[in-house]
């Protein structure tokens, strides 16, 4: 294995001091001269015809600069299936539908103006469960599609289907079978920084928008399209991404509030900022999709899986976001987590009058792994095999091609399972009489990009200055996860400079090269791959120029050195002859000849060399650009086939829990997480990712649910939407990273951003089952559900 200078060493994050000191600028901090504050009037009904919107009182309120509705502003259509509008004209389809918006000189006036807007509705029957909405003859939520063609049902027109092997043969071969129906709730991403943007037009009608986005370049495309809808043809959007207080998938789409800010800014000719309050974020922003998964698996006498059959129904809500592509990720564990010869997978998304959903960390994988890994334990139980042994029997292997056509390069799943079993003392039963139990669950996830768009690429520009500094321009979004830290390390390592000399510039579509978006755990994988490519190009160029300039400068060094050290005899080494590009090296910002004697005058500071290159006739400055598109393929999701990522990440998590059978409370005693990360880039940053993910996973397992009644969110605040805090994370967490040194991975690394929360819920659920023999199939596993199930069990036994 290669010896790295910076990779794998504990390095502090370049963005940390400013963030800790409150100096980083988030959307919330941004101010522009003449800026107005925008606010949105949301619907009072989940499904209704809009009869009349009266904005007259709001317009008359002093301090209000604009009031817009669909009736007095251009129609802006958006969304993954273009089924959504910035402002609704005829109908509302969910409580959070945007009906009107105001821009005012301060936020209080904007809020007051919103309260003055009165809307008359004609209520329509609402559909709040996908099963109800799927029924023939149900009222239509969308009467037409985005092309204006009539629709006949509430199914979202997207196909996700996979069939491989011989399912009926697999069923016949099964000695044991287990079936279960599992469901997951809508949960909120709970970013520390709420959603918001600031939109401003220049006098040429070009737009600048500061946005909380994970897809600045796709957003640029979306916003440019909106500009043409507004009659501003051929005008451009510049997207700037300031410091972000978390993303977790919320930035994978463009949102109505952004289009509304654009409309208000255009109407008023002033910069307009819209920032959601926490309540608005909960009630009027898209959470994770909720789904139900019916899964059946079978295995033979030997414990080998013979088939897997999966039907997913997903509640899309009223409109369609990128989150509607969750099943493309669900397919991955469905077909490829553990070796299974025949698989049937089908997913159906359904429109309802619930809040529409969007992406969240894991993107369908936690939902599916919840069902799959719970059911694995059920099947192990049927077969009388220990759940750990059962997983080992069916464990994935390096170099295999899975039923979906995933080409696995490295696979550390076996080591992950073994590590968890060892650290959790798996074969030792938990203490008797205390209702304690252990459980585990594993995962597969994309670890080498994830192609769900026609390009999965990322670019990088590196610009060197006279002082040996490296200025980087990259399209990946730092949203708190530490991307800038790994990019800094990657550049420092690959180029051979100290990390302090690397500066990552703010993300701006007008200066940074294109990147599809910071999703699919691809940030570090892509960024470091571009860093290696760019560094290699620069090194070639530096070494080429050194052939002429290195001897010249070293000569001067030597003269000075002799003056200072009279009598010094230089070693017998012909550095003029040795100055050949292939013999140079650059390390820690210093250039030298690899096989030269280590004399103080016989190496050059990079800045010195760059100045020599710059300040001469026909001088030059060095900069380079690269564009990296990983070797993976856009799958055919209707056929369920294609190598979506260039490498795959694996992991196993285990938990030991204690259940209070009188109150239903679950106490986690300890957790172990073993993840195949390819290679650890920055240890504390990686640990932070996994600790944070575990907390989110535990929230998903035990506490979190955006409750709603007839489409209305009932707990739109942290008082009643409970996430774990430090006090819930009061148990030891044992992390272990398996380094498989993947050949596609930069420095051997795979993506690790999402995996940490994928198997957490089933690991905990399996531990609860081990403790008390109760299997809860709908998340979250609240204390009430446990108590109710215990009571039922007791009644059945009595």
């Amino acid at each position, binding site marked *: 294995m290669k010896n790295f200078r910076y990779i794998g060493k504990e390095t502090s994050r370049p963005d940390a001091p400013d963030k800790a000191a409150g100096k980083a600028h988030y959307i919330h901090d941004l101010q522009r001269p003449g800026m107005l504050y925008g606010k949105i009037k949301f619907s009072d009904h989940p499904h209704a015809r809009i009869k009349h919107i009266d904005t007259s009182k709001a317009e008359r309120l002093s301090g209000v600069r604009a009031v817009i509705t669909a009736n007095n502003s251009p129609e802006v259509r958006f969304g993954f299936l273009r089924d959504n509008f910035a402002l609704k004209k005829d109908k509302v389809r969910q409580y959070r539908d945007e009906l009107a918006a105001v821009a005012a000189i301060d936020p*209080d006036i904007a809020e007051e103006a919103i309260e003055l807007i009165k809307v008359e509705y004609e209520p329509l029957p609402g559909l709040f469960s996908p099963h109800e909405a799927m029924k023939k003859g149900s009222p239509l939520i969308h009467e037409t599609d985005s092309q204006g063609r009539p629709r006949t049902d509430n199914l979202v027109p997207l196909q996700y289907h996979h069939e491989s092997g011989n399912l009926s043969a697999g069923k016949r071969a099964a000695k044991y079978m287990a079936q279960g129906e599992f469901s997951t709730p809508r949960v909120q991403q709970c970013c520390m920084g709420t959603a918001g943007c600031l939109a401003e037009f220049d006098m040429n009608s070009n737009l600048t928008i500061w946005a909380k986005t994970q897809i600045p370049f796709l957003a640029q495309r979306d916003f440019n399209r909106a500009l043409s809808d507004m009659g501003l043809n051929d005008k451009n959007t510049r997207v700037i991404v300031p410091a972000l207080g978390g993303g977790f998938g919320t930035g994978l789409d463009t949102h109505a509030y952004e289009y509304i800010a654009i409309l208000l800014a255009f109407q008023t000719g002033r910069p307009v900022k819209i920032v959601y309050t926490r309540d608005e974020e909960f009630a009027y922003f898209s959470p994770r999709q909720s789904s139900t998964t019916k899964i059946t698996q079978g295995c033979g006498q030997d414990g080998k899986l013979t088939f897997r059959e999966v039907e997913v129904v997903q509640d899309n809500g009223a409109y369609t976001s990128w989150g509607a592509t969750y099943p493309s990720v669900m397919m991955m564990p469905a077909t490829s987590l553990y070796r299974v010869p025949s698989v049937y997978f089908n997913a159906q998304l359904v429109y309802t009058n619930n809040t529409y959903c969007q992406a969240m960390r894991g993107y369908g994988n936690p939902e599916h792994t919840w069902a799959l890994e719970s059911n694995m334990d059920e099947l192990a139980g049927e077969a009388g095999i220990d759940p750990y042994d059962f997983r080992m029997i069916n464990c994935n292997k390096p170099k295999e091609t899975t039923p979906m056509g995933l080409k696995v390069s490295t696979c550390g799943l076996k080591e992950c399972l073994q590590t968890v079993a060892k650290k959790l003392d798996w074969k030792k039963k938990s203490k008797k009489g205390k209702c304690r139990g252990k459980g585990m669950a594993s995962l597969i996830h994309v670890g080498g990009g994830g192609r769900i768009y026609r390009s999965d690429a990322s670019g990088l520009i590196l610009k060197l200055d006279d002082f040996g500094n490296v200025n980087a321009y990259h399209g990946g979004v730092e949203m708190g996860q530490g991307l800038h830290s790994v990019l800094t390390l990657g550049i420092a390592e690959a180029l051979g400079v100290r990390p302090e000399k690397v500066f990552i510039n703010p993300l701006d579509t007008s200066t940074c090269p294109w990147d599809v978006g910071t999703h699919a755990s691809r940030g570090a994988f892509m960024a470091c791959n571009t860093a290696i490519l760019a560094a290699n190009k620069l090194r070639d160029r530096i070494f080429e120029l050194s052939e002429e300039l290195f001897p010249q400068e070293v000569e001067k060094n030597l003269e000075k050195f002799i003056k200072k050290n009279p009598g010094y005899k230089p070693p017998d080494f012909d550095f003029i002859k040795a100055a050949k590009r292939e013999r140079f090296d650059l390390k820690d910002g210093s250039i030298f000849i690899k096989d030269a004697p280590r004399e103080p005058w016989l190496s050059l500071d990079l800045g010195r060399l760059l100045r020599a290159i710059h300040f001469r006739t026909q001088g030059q400055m060095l900069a380079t650009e690269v564009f990296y598109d990983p070797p993976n393929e856009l799958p055919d999701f209707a056929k369920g086939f294609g190598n979506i990522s260039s490498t795959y990440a694996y992991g196993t998590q285990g938990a030991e829990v204690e259940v209070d059978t*009188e*109150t239903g*409370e679950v106490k986690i005693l300890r957790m172990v997480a073993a993840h195949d990360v390819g290679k650890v880039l920055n240890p504390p940053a990686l640990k932070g990712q996994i600790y944070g993910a575990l907390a989110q996973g535990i929230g998903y397992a035990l*506490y979190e649910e955006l*409750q709603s009644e007839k489409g209305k969110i*009932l*707990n739109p605040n942290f*008082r*009643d939407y*409970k*996430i*774990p*805090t430090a*006090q*819930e994370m009061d148990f030891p967490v044992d992390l272990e990273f398996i380094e498989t040194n993947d050949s596609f991975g930069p420095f051997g690394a795979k993506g690790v951003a999402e995996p940490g929360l994928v198997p957490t819920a089933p690991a905990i659920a399996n531990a609860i089952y081990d403790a008390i023999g109760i299997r809860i199939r709908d998340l979250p596993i*609240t*204390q*009430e559900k446990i*108590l109710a199930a215990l009571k039922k069990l007791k009644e059945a036994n009595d």
Partner: protein
Amino acid sequence: MRRFDYFRPKSLKEALELKKTIAGAKFISGGTDLIVQIKNRELKPSALISLRFIPELATIEINGGARIGALVTISDILQHPELGHNYPVLTEAAKSLGSVQIRNVATIGGNLCNCSPCADMALPLLVLEAKVRLQSAKASREVPISKFFKGPGESCLASNEILTDILLNPPHNKAKATFLKKGRVKVDLAIASLALLLEMEGGICRKARIAAGSVAPIPLRLSKVETLLEGAAVSEDLVSKAQHLARETVSPITDVRATEKYRRQIVGVYVKRGLEKILGQSLA
């Protein structure tokens, strides 16, 4: 948020004077309940009169019993050595209220005057049979805490009165008390909570005081359960009866936090666990 005026009177007299002259004014102590209500537009006060700058309201006095000023923060209570020693149940409840940040500003008076059925500090005060002192421009009166609460957000406090002190009887050396609270997570409003005080003599319960939170329109004394226990020997059978009676006595509601059924269940379990904790034995 709506605009309002803000006043910082330096004396009780000045505060009461201001309240009388400004229609629609509210007193504010730590603001951890009030500001939330204003932001949620449940309240639209014209002015806020802060009680934080009236020195005598923020003191604790140990005088055989104790006098706790209404503006004493929950953190103050936790840091006071004698108070915790004499009335450990008060500390137990204080520890469970909110987070450190909240405890640093939330006051005991605010907790009572907000009159939430889940008010954590109400329960130990109910079982300690505390009194509250209410002051108007003209007069001062003392009210037993069990008579203070009238309903959610309602108390016997008149609009021209300030709660100034909480008065505690000297601690009884045979009495032991404990506090139990159930939330969905650790930092949470109670789904159900219970304080229990017991005086035992030769295996016989001489005195029992039980109060439960979040299971009725007010923080509730469970007098029937108290009567059942008093004068009896605490046996498993009695505990099971007490549990049952506690579940029957309360009248909880179902909301986003918990169902009515679950709250009843927890109150029952807590009666048992409270007794177990005090008696130091298992009563299952």
